[in-house]
């Protein structure tokens, strides 16, 4: 799977370029997120604006990233579509993740450079 990455100060914006984050690609996604976290990124915004469908495997991979942070950093999400937000609510992951409307809001909260974030 393809992940676009962009820096906004010390915040890393990660954008999955897939319309479905599901069991086909969840393992690959999880491994790529693990590598990013292992390489020292401690402030990550996961922009899910291009993702129309997330299944439990995809959601598990996102949760895995948060757990991999181990409380030493922040992984927040933004750009959820109505359908994917429904999954976060159903599984109560909206209580776990900080969810923002767009990159700019998420980067602002994490103290990054908002000029490099999309609205």
């Amino acid at each position, binding site marked *: 799977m393809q992940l676009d990455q962009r820096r906004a100060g010390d915040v890393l914006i990660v954008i999955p370029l897939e319309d*479905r984050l*599901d*069991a*086909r690609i969840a393992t690959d996604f999880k491994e790529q997120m693990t590598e990013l976290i292992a390489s020292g990124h401690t402030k990550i915004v996961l922009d899910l604006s291009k993702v129309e*469908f997330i*299944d*439990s*495997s995809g*959601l*598990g*991979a996102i*949760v*895995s990233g*948060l*757990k991999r942070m*181990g*409380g030493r950093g922040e992984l927040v999400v933004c750009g959820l579509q*109505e*359908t994917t937000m*429904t*999954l976060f609510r*159903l*599984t*109560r992951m909206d*209580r*776990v993740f900080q969810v923002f409307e767009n990159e700019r809001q998420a980067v602002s909260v994490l103290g990054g450079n908002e000029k490099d974030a999309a609205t």
Partner: protein
Amino acid sequence: MSERRITLAIASDLQNVPLVGQAIQRLCSLTSLSDIESHQIALCVVEAVNNAIIHAYDREAEHEVQVIFSHYSDKLTFQICDAGRAMDPNCLAPKAPSPFDFDPRCLERLPEGGLGLAIIRSTMDEVSYTTTCGKNILTLTRFFKSCRIDTTPLMG
């Protein structure tokens, strides 16, 4: 009761699951269900097909998974059929505590897996599982809102 039925069949490869998911979502969208409801039901069918491929067939791609979509006047049913290893029916029983009943502050205990069936149970009105002559059938039922049985106790 009149019924309209479509059978979808795919090889047991996860790459094929989006085909089923998108077809089911489209079929649901032709009913009185909202777009969000159609999406949620398609998610349930995807979870069930994923389970069949991963657990019943151990990810072997040379088998077949069928999804039978049936449209009745009062409900939709989805039968996910495989001929692999049968699921333990206890897996369908509601778990206590629910997999969704976790402490959001306790990072280590956040669930990374095992949410598929919980999503199905939360979304569908009825879920049943049978194994007959080597064929496993998971049946998901969703009643149209006006036809749902209200189980709320009458007040007064």
